[in-house]
């Protein structure tokens, strides 16, 4: 338990009385000097961690304000004295009589009556008027936001007050994952005093909403609404503290903050939607993901645990394995009982509540601080808490099991590796605590001893320690990744929901195989597509570089397989597979039944080669945002080089010297085996140029020169007359069909609406293809070509890929069509929550969520990173009050806040930032200063 003492007095006074030297784990904060200082106290004593230091001007203003106040009161015939000059404030005694020199708290009513009488005899309207006089004097002295307070005997003019203390405390707790609903605010002076708000009412600023507030004071005029008046003074206060300690000793379930902007509620139970709900409510830590299924059993539930990168099976049948479950209790989910699940996005907690009593309540988390460690605490009816053992093998899987000293372990083989998991539980009275530790290794079968060792460590830390570390880690991640959309509460919730799953899906160490559904479900067999590299990775590169690096490590470790794939085709370099799993060998099926029942050839594995450049682009994106030179000159350079070599051997020159790439599939997968797909060619061009730049000094000059020549010779289908790119050679000759005009609605699966053959022969797109270039590599396309290509291709796009709406939101934002951009963004955000694909039961669409972030960061904020710095070009829709993003550029945190007519950037001066297009002007920052750049 943490305690923050908020008082107006100074450290000598408070520490002298308390003499507390707590050893932890709870923290003691002393918030002193009316909001101007914060100390943290441990075994070594107090140490200042925050101090509001006044400027000389502020000091002079405070002096002037106090003198003026005393003088003005004197003019009214009231003698008042300045009694102290404390940090950031001046204290004026309005009743400097010996009999009221040091009144005890118990005499507050008498003191108030004496002061009021004294003031009225001077013709003043009580303390309220004195405060008004002081405020006016402070403003006249130059203080724009003076804090004037009174404890009846004194009036203080300051730069800070208790509200600053409260705000500091709530902000500090928030940074540690503790929401206001988990805070008890106790005071003795909430009610009004002398016509002024009670001083403790300042402890309840807007940030304290949902906190429990109690008064133990006498409160002669009552308390403000929302405050519970207990009375009883210090004894009640001590009883409150004892009660809080007792709750922890009993192991009560921690409160979960219910802030609607940070919470996903799922109330009730619907067998039809249960699997969708379970996917949406998945909790993951980058190593394992656990569905948000009920802890009790139900035939409609499909509880599952997936481990990152742990595949089994052969060829295209290779799939993520289902791992032993740690969440199951034996009791069946009873019918017709109230059931509620609550996912706290900020703290990464899943709470389940069954029955109104409740009969069973549980908290579950998969530790972001200690990935692979999963924790369950449940309280309730004993029969619902019991289980034969804490681990349950997934259906259809074979596991070895054992028990060591009462601890259960299991081992499961998968591919060349496997996992080991150990779990222990303790059932005492109405409380069950369970901890499970998973060790996942795709390359070797782990020893259960390792899982047991980690379990022992986790048990030593205990529930409280694991819980605190987990929610603190989640809070830290949010500090660098949150996005605020003010003025659109629905989008705000949906965006945070997307960011939550993005953050949970990639580990920060080793390699991160991020499949199409992350760790939230088994659909797409967990295969890794360009979804991860192009859609998910940018978010991580800009908010959590170690996780982006781990995603690239997954590709780097499979470079040999990619080299082998290229060699098998008689080519150089590395050819990454369209679908990848454990080994890096292509696992794309060759045939499949589609929605129309037909057995169709799947040619993406053979032809969708832009994946090669996509992975290089992802590496470039990571380098640009992180500034990781070790990567750029090490494995990153190798990745650029090998992918460039592939393109160099893939490209063909015609007799006129123009370069071509024949027979590919572009992102618009409706058209197969096309020549000179603009996206593929331009991405290959970018790849060659980036590799030539990155290979300077490491790759022979002649080879680099040949790459640049090839890049320059590559055709891209651009027509300078129309400013349009032709999607591929011959696209313009296809049936001129505008899907926006003929489809009953969009998005729609055009190949099902029109039939496969007609779709192949028509100018209809599944998703952005040419336009994807404007999104990914805007410097590689003709200036000014976004608008004409957007106007041409968007109406021809069916948006039959779940990747399409978010990317179009970004493009529409860049084009200034902000209303349409918001519509597209909202659609992208709703793809999973409304189960628009009918497959969210198999996991959420992680790439769509990455696209949502890109729409906001790249689209609306216009953020672009490069070696030269960070560029911004913000666009704010009329319907939003503000958009605020947190990013990391080259290791420096950056906060960008865009309001209607205002832009706020909070970043270290070392970050080179330029702002373009802001109110028609362009700015660059040089050191601390901003300069307007005129063309």
């Amino acid at each position: 338990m943490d305690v923050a003492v908020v008082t107006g007095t100074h450290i000598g006074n408070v520490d002298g009385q308390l003499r507390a030297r707590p050893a932890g784990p709870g923290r003691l904060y002393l918030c002193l000097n009316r909001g101007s200082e914060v100390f943290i106290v441990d075994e070594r004593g107090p140490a200042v961690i925050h101090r509001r230091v006044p400027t000389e001007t502020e000091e002079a203003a405070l002096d002037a304000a106090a003198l003026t106040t005393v003088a003005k009161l004197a003019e009214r015939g009231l003698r008042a004295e300045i009694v102290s000059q404390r940090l950031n404030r001046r204290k004026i005694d309005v009743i400097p009589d010996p009999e009221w020199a040091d009144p005890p708290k118990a005499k507050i009513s008498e003191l108030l009556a004496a002061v009021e009488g004294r003031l009225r005899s001077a013709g003043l309207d009580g303390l309220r008027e004195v405060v008004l006089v002081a405020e006016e004097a402070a403003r006249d002295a130059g203080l724009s936001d003076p804090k004037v307070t009174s404890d009846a005997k004194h009036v203080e003019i300051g730069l800070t007050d208790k509200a600053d203390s409260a705000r500091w405390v709530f902000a500090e707790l928030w940074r540690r994952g503790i929401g206001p609903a988990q805070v008890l605010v106790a005071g003795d002076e909430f009610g009004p005093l002398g016509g002024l708000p009670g001083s403790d009412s300042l402890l309840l600023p807007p940030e304290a909403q949902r906190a429990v507030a109690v008064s133990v004071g006498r409160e002669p005029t009552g308390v403000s609404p929302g405050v519970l008046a207990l009375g009883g003074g210090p004894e009640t206060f001590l009883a409150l503290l004892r009660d809080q300690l007792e709750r922890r000793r009993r192991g009560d379930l921690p409160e979960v903050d219910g802030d609607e902007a940070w919470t996903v509620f799922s109330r009730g139970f619907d067998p039809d939607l249960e699997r969708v709900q379970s996917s949406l409510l998945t909790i993951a830590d980058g190593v394992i993901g656990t569905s948000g299924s009920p802890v009790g059993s139900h035939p409609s539930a499909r509880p599952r645990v997936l481990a990152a990168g742990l595949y089994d099976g052969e060829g295209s049948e290779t799939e993520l394995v289902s791992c032993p479950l740690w969440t199951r209790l034996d009791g069946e989910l009873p019918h017709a009982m109230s059931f509620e699940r609550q996912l706290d996005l900020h703290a990464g907690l899943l709470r389940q509540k069954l029955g109104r009593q409740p009969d069973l309540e549980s908290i579950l988390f998969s530790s972001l601080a200690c990935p692979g460690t999963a924790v369950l605490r449940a309280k309730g009816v004993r029969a619902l808490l019991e289980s034969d053992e804490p681990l349950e093998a997934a259906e259809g899987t074979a596991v070895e099991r054992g028990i060591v000293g009462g601890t259960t372990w299991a081992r499961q083989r998968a591919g060349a590796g496997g996992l080991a998991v150990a779990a222990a539980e303790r059932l005492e009275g109405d409380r069950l605590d369970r901890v499970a530790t998973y060790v996942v290794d795709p390359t070797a079968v782990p020893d259960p001893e390792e899982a047991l060792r980690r379990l022992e460590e986790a048990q030593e830390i205990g529930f409280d320690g694991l819980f605190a570390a987990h929610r603190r880690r989640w809070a830290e991640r949010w500090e660098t990744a949150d996005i605020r959309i003010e003025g659109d509460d629905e989008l705000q919730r949906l965006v945070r929901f997307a960011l939550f799953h993005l953050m949970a899906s990639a580990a920060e160490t080793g390699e991160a195989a991020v499949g199409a559904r992350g760790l939230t479900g088994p659909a797409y067999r967990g295969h890794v597509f360009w979804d991860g590299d192009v859609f998910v990775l940018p978010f991580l590169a800009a908010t959590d570089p170690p996780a982006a690096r781990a995603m690239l490590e997954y590709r780097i470790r499979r470079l040999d397989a990619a080299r082998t794939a290229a060699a098998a085709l008689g080519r150089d370099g590395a050819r990454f597979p369209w679908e990848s799993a454990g080994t890096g060998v292509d696992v794309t099926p060759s045939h499949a039944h589609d929605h129309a029942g037909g057995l169709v050839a799947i040619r993406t594995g053979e032809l969708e080669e832009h994946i090669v450049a996509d992975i290089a682009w992802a590496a470039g994106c990571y380098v640009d945002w992180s500034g990781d030179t070790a990567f750029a000159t090490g494995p990153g350079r190798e990745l650029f080089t090998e992918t460039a070599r592939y393109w160099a051997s893939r490209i063909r020159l015609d007799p006129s010297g123009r370069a071509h790439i024949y027979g590919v599939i572009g992102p618009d997968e409706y058209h197969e085996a096309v020549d000179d797909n603009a996206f593929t060619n331009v991405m290959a061009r970018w790849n060659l140029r980036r590799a030539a730049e990155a290979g300077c000094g490491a790759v022979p000059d002649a080879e680099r020169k040949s790459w640049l020549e090839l890049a320059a010779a590559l055709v891209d289908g651009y027509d300078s007359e129309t400013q349009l790119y032709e999607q591929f050679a011959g696209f313009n000759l296809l049936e001129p069909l505008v899907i926006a005009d003929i489809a009953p609605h969009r998005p729609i699966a055009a190949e099902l609406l029109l039939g496969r053959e007609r779709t192949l022969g028509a100018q209809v797109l599944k998703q952005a293809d040419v336009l994807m270039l404007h999104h990914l590599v805007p410097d590689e396309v003709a200036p000014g070509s976004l608008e004409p290509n957007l106007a041409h291709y968007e109406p021809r796009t069916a948006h039959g890929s779940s990747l399409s709406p978010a990317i179009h939101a970004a493009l529409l934002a860049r084009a200034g069509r902000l209303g349409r951009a918001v519509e597209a963004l909202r659609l992208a955000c709703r793809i999973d929550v409304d189960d628009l694909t009918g497959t969210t039961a198999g996991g959420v669409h992680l790439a769509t969520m990455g696209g949502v972030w890109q729409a906001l960061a790249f689209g609306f904020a216009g953020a672009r990173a490069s070696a030269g710095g960070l560029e911004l070009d913000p666009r704010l829709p009329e319907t939003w009050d503000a958009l605020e993003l947190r990013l990391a550029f080259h290791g420096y945190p950056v906060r960008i806040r865009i309001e209607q007519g205002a832009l706020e950037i909070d970043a270290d001066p070392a970050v080179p930032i330029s702002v373009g297009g802001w109110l028609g002007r362009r700015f660059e920052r040089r050191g601390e200063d901003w300069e307007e750049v005129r063309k």
Partner: protein
Amino acid sequence: MRKIIAALDNSLAARAVLATAGNLAQLFDAEVEALHVGEDGDKVARGAAAAAGLQLQRVAGPTVPALVDAAAADDVAALVVGTRRLPVGGRPVGTTALDVITSLLKPVAVVPPDAVRRSALQRVLVPLEGTTVTSLAPKGIIELARDADLGVVVLHVHDAATLPAFTDQPQHQARAWADEFMARYCPWGIGNVRVELRVGRPAKEILAAAEETDAHLIVLGWSQEIDWGRAPVVRELLERGRIPVLLVPVRLIPTGDERREESWNRSQSSLA
């Protein structure tokens, strides 16, 4: 022992009706009762019954009420009637068949006169439209077929109004979609049935799929409302099909059905 009533008229359809009744009797572990209603001649019916080793039961009176009365008995599992009398010419559904299927609260198999007569059912096609109510109706039949080791093919047809918005990667999407479709609408069939998807006009696609999969019987849950504009799929299947269609009224599903009971407080999400 339970009974399958084969309603035989004095037409060439009688033999097809009897064959289907025999097939259903095997499925339901029941015996066939051959029944003829009316004052007209029964020579063909009697001959067909005799050929099947059955004694023809005769009942006088108006045909439809008599059939409904007979089939309403507790020991009757299903009724089998002919779609129409003649296998040639136009293919309207006979009024007897229409009146019986809309008024009898029992599974009714409607057999076209030109249906191929099978010695035993091998494969059953179960079209599901993707609603809880209609998917519950064929549940019992699917379970019987599964227990009898018959092949069961569950079919869903996307029409213009229900086309998926997204197909993403078709090599995975259709399977993921079908997995969840089965979990919602046919959980009792998971692992035991084959799932087929089609796009087009439902009745047409159902008939095509029945042919492609060599289905011997189509099983369909329905609302028993066949007035103008209602149940167009059922009407077209009966008019155009050459495969017996077993119609299971959704009203057979008790209001306190187990799956509905499971759904309490109808799930609500703060993201919805």
